[in-house]
């Protein structure tokens, strides 16, 4: 027969206890503790017919992790298979106890008396199932259960156990670079769904080089059934890739590449690393204009590369009749610059502005030319400056203090003639 026992504590005995137990018995007690508790079982009396490996009469315990232990003999006589005074614990909330007697009990053994208590919280965090820990990263035990959390940068998977890497939606826009599986070269996280996009301007062609270590969980008979690396460029697909041999270089011919990587809930593999580079048709090397310089100087300029032109001091960037405050050229798809080169022409401050109650004298207006303002009789230059302005490299007339506004001619004050002048 089978008996069900529940509650925080209880007891059960062999049939007819404390008298001799009958022959040919097979009784099972299924004990269930409240959630989060494990069971402690102990005996106040134990006396079963001893036999080798307890093959005659025995008491067998089956815990819910399917571990089995079998007892027989007498505790007082120190038989090897008796439970003696030991406390027996279940790993989880249930324990199954089976009493069996065979066809004879000639020495009149009296059986057992067992007590159980559901007295201790189970630390589910230390329990491993199939060799796997309860949680991928962090485990937090509490009465009745446990929960898992992940290290910074990881997300708890819907299975509440695994920590997946945040690795989706990554976009790389540099002309070259590298991308790896999460935590590379350490074991990559389980249950991860990663996708990376290398997105360069139209005109670039992206090349991919796989570097050692390459280690993606594989299967000898099936193509990448567990974890898989896939690459998509334009409409072409490369992969699936797995195993330990890095794939050969891939010249995609595309300016946009998508790399996806999926891992399942098992395995310990170190992942992959891709170095990518790009090529494009170069633009003609630019020639610096006379009195000008080009920077940065490069051996080759390709798509999106830029260069600036600056002029020597006193010279100005001009394109046709237009004065340019700044010039930058960009290499376009197909190997063309986006505009013609400017020239560097001598700065011309042009004719200076006139002032009220004064005049200005000048002969030339180009860089470093000088002009002189003077005021009419009875007027003087405010601030008592000399009125000399020089054509500066920025195209403005500037005085010795760097000011570009023309001087003010203000009336001379307080200088009468006659007695007050003396």
């Amino acid at each position: 027969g089978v008996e069900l026992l529940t509650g925080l504590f209880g007891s059960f005995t062999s049939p007819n206890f404390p008298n001799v137990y009958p022959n040919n018995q097979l009784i099972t007690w299924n004990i269930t503790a409240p959630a989060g508790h494990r069971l402690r079982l102990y005996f106040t009396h134990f006396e079963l017919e001893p036999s080798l490996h307890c093959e005659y009469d025995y008491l067998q315990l089956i815990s819910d992790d399917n571990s089995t232990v079998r007892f027989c003999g007498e505790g007082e006589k120190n038989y090897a298979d008796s439970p003696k005074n030991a406390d027996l614990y279940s790993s989880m909330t249930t324990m199954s106890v089976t009493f069996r007697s065979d066809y004879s009990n000639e020495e009149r053994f009296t059986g057992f008396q067992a007590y159980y208590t559901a007295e201790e919280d189970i630390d589910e965090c230390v329990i491993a199932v199939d060799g796997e820990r309860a949680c991928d990263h962090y485990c937090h035990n509490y009465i009745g259960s446990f929960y898992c959390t992940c290290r910074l940068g990881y997300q708890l998977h819907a299975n509440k156990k695994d920590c997946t890497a945040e690795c989706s939606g990554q976009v790389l826009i540099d002309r070259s670079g590298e991308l790896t599986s999460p935590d590379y070269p350490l074991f990559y996280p389980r249950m991860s769904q990663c996708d990376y996009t290398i997105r360069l301007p139209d005109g670039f062609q992206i090349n991919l080089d796989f570097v050692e270590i390459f280690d993606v969980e594989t299967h000898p008979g099936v193509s990448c059934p567990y974890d898989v690396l896939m690459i998509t460029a334009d409409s072409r697909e490369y992969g699936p890739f797995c195993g330990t041999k890095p794939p050969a270089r891939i010249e995609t011919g595309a300016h946009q590449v998508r790399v996806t990587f999926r891992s399942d809930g098992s395995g310990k593999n170190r992942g992959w690393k891709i170095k990518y580079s790009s090529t494009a048709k170069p633009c003609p090397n630019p020639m610096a204009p006379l009195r000008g310089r080009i920077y940065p100087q490069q051996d080759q300029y390709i798509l999106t590369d830029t260069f600036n032109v600056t002029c020597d001091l006193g010279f100005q960037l001009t394109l046709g009749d237009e004065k340019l405050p700044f010039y930058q050229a960009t290499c376009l798809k197909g190997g063309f610059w986006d505009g013609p080169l400017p020239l560097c022409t001598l700065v011309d401050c042009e004719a200076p502005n006139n002032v009220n109650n004064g005049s200005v004298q000048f002969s030339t207006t180009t860089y470093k030319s000088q002009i002189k303002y003077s005021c009419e009789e009875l007027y003087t230059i405010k601030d008592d400056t000399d009125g000399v302005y020089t054509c500066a490299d920025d195209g403005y007339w500037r005085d010795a203090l760097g000011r570009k506004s023309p001087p003010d001619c203000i009336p001379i004050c307080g200088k009468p003639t006659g007695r007050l002048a003396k």
Partner: protein
Amino acid sequence: VIGGEDAQKNEIPWQVMILKGGRLKGGGVLLRDDWVLTAAHVLQDMSGLAVKLGLVKRSDPDAVVAFPKDIFIHPSYHHDGLNFDHDIALIKLKQKVPLSAAIMPVCLPGKEERFILQTNDYGTVSGWGVWHKTSNRGSYNLKYAEIPVADFAECKAKYDALVTPNGRLVVTDNMVCAGLEQGGVDSCQGDSGGPYVFLDKQSRSWYIGGIVSWGYTCAEAGYYGMYTKVTNYIDWIEDIMLKNS
């Protein structure tokens, strides 16, 4: 100006005559070629207001007449006949006046310490106002006199002790007392708004130190003439001129 001398043409080229309805209202001083500084109590409104420059004799046919475009009375001035604090105003002329030997601005004082008036500094006051203690007629010829800055504490004490039929006259730090202790030389009615100028020895230029404002009687011993202290209003003057030029 009582006890002064007749000015000659071109001697005080910054002197401005202010007229209201063609009659002498007071004096002023030319600051630029289109700004006149005067006393607030000389101005009420712009109607009928005109200024003459470049003259010493009232009937000088060469005098330049100009008209105000705007007037700016100091916002803190509230004339009640006893308190002349902040007695200062500016007139912006409609047009710039032609400068000449007869028409020339006076300088504004700088912010340096040498422009702070000290007791016994001598300055020159000028105007067409009453020129004799026994007469209430204005002068035909522009008159001027040199008078010293008086001790302010002594001057204030004197006025504080004086109770006129209308009440006590107010002396503030915005005023300069000037005149002779024994009296006899002073500015008087009709000179109001006119210049009290000082020579800056460093630049050899005359600057405006005071504006004829008020006094108890004229040229009387013990009661000094009161002038608006221009150094206290440099920022106000420059701000008004800058914003309205």
